[in-house]
């Protein structure tokens, strides 16, 4: 074995996860709320931009068809 290769016991891919159910439950309890806040904020900004352009630029520019 080459000397610069990690030994199997030190390879991160070889190590097992040490996540117990309690820790997983804590994560699962907070993940949907964080995702909703992040996605909701992003969509709200886009909708506000759309409404601002529609009301302040598009409508004042007048009739077209």
């Amino acid at each position, binding site marked *: 074995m080459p000397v610069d290769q990690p030994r199997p016991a030190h390879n991160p891919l070889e190590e097992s996860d040490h996540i117990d159910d309690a820790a997983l439950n804590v994560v699962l309890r907070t993940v949907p709320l964080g995702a909703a806040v992040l996605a909701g904020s992003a969509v709200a900004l886009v909708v506000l931009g759309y409404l601002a352009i529609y009301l302040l630029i598009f409508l004042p520019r*007048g009739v*077209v068809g």
Partner: protein
Amino acid sequence: MTDQPHETHERWILGTELIWAFGVGVLVAATISVIVFTALTLNINPPSNVERVDPKTLHLSGEFSEQNLGTLVAADGTVTARIIATQFTFVPHCIALPRGRPVTLRLASPDVIHGILITGTNVNTMVVPGYVAQVHTEFTQSGELLMPCHEYCGLGHSEMWAGVQVLSAAEFKPDGDGRVSCAQR
């Protein structure tokens, strides 16, 4: 026993996804409603006109022959501007139009696809060879506006533009033939 909290959280996550999907559905419906409301109540629509014209004989006879280009006020008072978009200019190069009156822009191309917009307005359309592009609008402010080609049409595309003079009722004076041009000012 240990799977019970997982199932509870998975149901909660599924619930948030369903609520999110409902919210997205509401937003899509609201956006479509705004478009329909604008079209029905304010008469603001995407320009739409399917009308064929022969691009090979555009300049020889008919509506887009040279003497018929520019702004014309018909006997019934309707204002129509006929414009040819060609590589790499508009004919005429300046269009005089009235403020506060419905006007119709009719454009045709003898060569390649062009497009126009008029700065500060909602006028925006493609000009496709073989078809007449038509836009109805009403200008709300007087002044000099720029009408550039907004569809890449060749090496001279960036030099292809025209001016639009929006004139007040006092300045918009048709001649005996009902024609109005920028040169009259």
